[in-house]
């Protein structure tokens, strides 16, 4: 297999566009260009796809740690400390270097469907968003029914929340409400305009909006809060999903396969060592030369000192099912600002169970991150880790008994009983577990934002792509890809304007699903939205609040 001489000389010739790095953005561009008819050569210096977006097995992770800590580090990562306990099967793990989730109503998902790359992927639901508060995890009320069945909200709060949720669904149109708060902190807006209390503001900002701080400007924050709410009920009772085995890396590979189907040539393990602007000849480490007719897109940028996210990955010997919704295998836990000895940014935790394909059963992976640099960032992550540890030991313990009184049970309109989470939380808090938690792997590292190593002139053949975003949800991927596409082709009009000749209509059907407006909160129209969604008045009437 290693000797494909004919093809090697093949590639020693020409291409229109050479793309260096198989990160998500580069891979989207590769597919877009290949389908548009551009002759693409796509290479990566690593023996795997995904670059800074990759999910690595443990052997790859060790090599990655060495590279990140070496003098020749050319990644957006730095300061990696890795601890791996003995006797783990390296191939049973996929450690996601830049974990991300995908909201069900987002431009990236629309593109995945339109390009039919979604057919290569297996998506799993993510419906559990918890906020850490006073030593317990509160499940975020993300839907109307959550709000109404919540045992912890007063009627007044429920009304205020409802009013806000109705507003935010088309906040863009209601400019009069927020215009004067445009650049003010979202917390101020929510408090002054909607009379919301701190706990609700915290949940809206941190868990629903996935924002690092309540100081985020109102304009930015409203879009993020809306993203969650309109994503609920698109495919079920969850707003987000992830792809099996590590989302960013799998999406990148899906787009690369799509590009290959359209004729792009792929070469992993090929390092680019030189490029001559005047002749347009690129040189690989192997000595091969490639004539590039149009552009080179390179992901080899340099890290800046401005912004930094500190990350921690812990593999624990607990399945963590206690934190997942029924039938799910992932959850998000957020530690708001000022809950961890003075953290000025939230610590976000993505918990992945074995159903994610990232670890063996009986284990889970905790991905913690904070937008705070080095030493200080790590300190907060360790405090959060300790709280997570306490919580999972409490919640997963076998020898804990808990008697329920009838008055602590409320009933949903459909007859299902729910136990007051306050009471449950209190009892759990007073319980000290006997076991300790076993860590099978711990990894800490930092990630920087990146810039071009040089400012290329406007007519340069060489253009640069950016490193993964810090946010937990994918942001700007499609826009970044379109930007690069436009630099090559001069337009975005034909970006993925592909008429797939297949007879199946999958793609069109699901594209329609994306176009349908979120109906859940536009309740004045009273449309048929399926059996299990409650109308405001109806629920209020049945419940004695």
């Amino acid at each position, binding site marked *: *297999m*290693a000797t*494909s001489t004919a*093809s090697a000389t093949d*590639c020693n010739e020409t291409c229109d566009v050479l793309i260096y790095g198989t990160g998500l953005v580069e891979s989207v561009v590769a597919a877009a260009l290949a389908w548009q008819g551009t002759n693409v050569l796509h290479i990566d210096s690593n023996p*795997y*796809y995904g670059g800074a977006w990759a999910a690595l097995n443990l052997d790859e992770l060790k090599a990655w740690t060495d590279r990140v800590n070496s003098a020749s580090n050319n990644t957006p990562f730095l300061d990696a400390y890795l601890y791996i306990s003995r006797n783990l099967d390296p*191939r*049973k793990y996929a450690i996601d270097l830049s974990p991300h989730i995908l909201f069900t109503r987002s431009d990236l*998902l629309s593109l995945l*469907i339109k390009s039919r790359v*979604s057919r*290569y992927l*297996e*998506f*799993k*639901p993510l419906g559990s968003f918890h906020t850490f508060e006073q030593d317990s995890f509160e499940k975020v009320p993300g839907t109307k029914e959550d709000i109404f069945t919540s045992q912890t909200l007063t009627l007044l709060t429920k009304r205020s929340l409802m009013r806000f949720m109705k507003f935010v669904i088309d906040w863009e149109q209601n400019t009069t409400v927020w215009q004067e708060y445009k650049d003010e902190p979202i917390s101020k807006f929510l408090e002054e305009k909607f009379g919301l209390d701190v706990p609700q503001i915290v949940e809206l900002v941190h868990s629903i909006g996935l924002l690092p701080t309540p100081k985020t400007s109102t304009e930015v924050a409203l879009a993020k809060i809306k993203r969650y709410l309109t994503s609920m*009920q*698109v*495919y*079920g*009772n969850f707003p987000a*999903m992830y792809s*099996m*085995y590590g989302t960013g*890396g*799998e999406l990148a*590979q*899906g787009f*690369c*396969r799509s590009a*290959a*189907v*359209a*004729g792009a*040539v*792929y*070469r*992993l*393990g*090929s390092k680019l060592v030189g490029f001559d602007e005047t002749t347009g000849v690129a040189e690989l480490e192997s000595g091969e030369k490639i004539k590039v007719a149009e552009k080179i897109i390179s992901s080899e940028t340099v890290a800046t000192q401005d912004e930094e996210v500190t990350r921690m990955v812990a593999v624990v010997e607990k*399945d963590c099912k206690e934190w997942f919704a029924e*039938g*799910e*295998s992932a959850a998000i836990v957020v530690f708001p600002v000022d809950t961890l000895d003075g953290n000025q940014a939230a610590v976000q935790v993505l918990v992945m*169970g*074995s*159903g994610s394909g990232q670890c063996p*059963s009986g284990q889970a992976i905790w991905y913690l991150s904070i937008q705070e640099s080095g030493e200080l960032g790590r300190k907060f992550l360790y405090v959060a880790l300790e709280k997570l540890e306490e919580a999972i030991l409490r919640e997963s313990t076998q020898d804990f008994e808990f008697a329920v009184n009838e008055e602590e049970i409320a009933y949903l309109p459909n007859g299902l009983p729910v136990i007051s989470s306050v009471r449950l939380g209190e009892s759990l808090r007073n319980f000290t577990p006997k076991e300790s938690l076993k860590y099978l792997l711990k990894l800490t590292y930092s990630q920087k934002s990146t810039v071009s190593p040089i400012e290329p002139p406007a007519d340069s053949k060489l253009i640069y792509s950016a490193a993964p975003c810090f946010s937990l949800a994918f942001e700007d991927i499609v826009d970044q890809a379109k930007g690069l596409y436009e630099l090559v082709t001069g337009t975005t009009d034909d970006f993925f304007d592909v008429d797939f000749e297949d007879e199946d209509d*999958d*793609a069109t*059907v*699901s594209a*329609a*699903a994306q176009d*349908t407006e979120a109906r859940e909160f536009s309740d004045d129209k009273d449309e048929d*939205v*399926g059996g*299990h*969604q409650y109308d405001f008045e109806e629920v209020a009437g049945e419940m004695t609040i």
Partner: protein
Amino acid sequence: MSSRKKTMLKVIILGDSGVGKTSLMQQYVSKKFSNQYKATIGADFLTKQDVRVDDRTVTMQLWDTAGQERFQSLGVAFYRGADCCVLVYDVNNAKSFEALDSWRDEFLIQASPRDPESFPFVVLGNKIDVEESKRVVSQKRALAFCQAKGNIPYFETSAKEAINVDQAFEVIARNALIQEESEEYSSDFSDPINIHLDNERGGCEC
């Protein structure tokens, strides 16, 4: 519980360039054959619906390599979740036969199936329609290889003359189904989201 669930089997087809992987898939799925050789680009995967396996009906997804194997750049995602791996060689090309072992190793490393010993492979010796004098790999030699690798089922096929193609894929489907079911019971199983169904919006799984 899962009687409503549609069984989708992922089958990947590996082998050297030009052995007839794409032709075999085409012959099986659309009963078509072309004499023109064009190294595969543009092939993605083919779906064959309503395949009967005993009393079950399954859908088979046959994944072609899309050209990414040319520089050993298939990537781990290609292998993930495969239920059966078909190894193809050309009976008139010794090198393509000798490569089978490394294709098999590559699969086992990349896909890392839960139980490598029992993972189903099927070997196809293709192009048997070509005149006998050109044949360089004997049936005996091929069978010896398959036996040594844990009794891999072996078929001699012709994509051109449609010899043994249906028979081979019947075994592929059956073995893939057995594999799928064994995986399902041993993992933390939950259904993936079907993002291609509009009418299931908001449907709950109760």
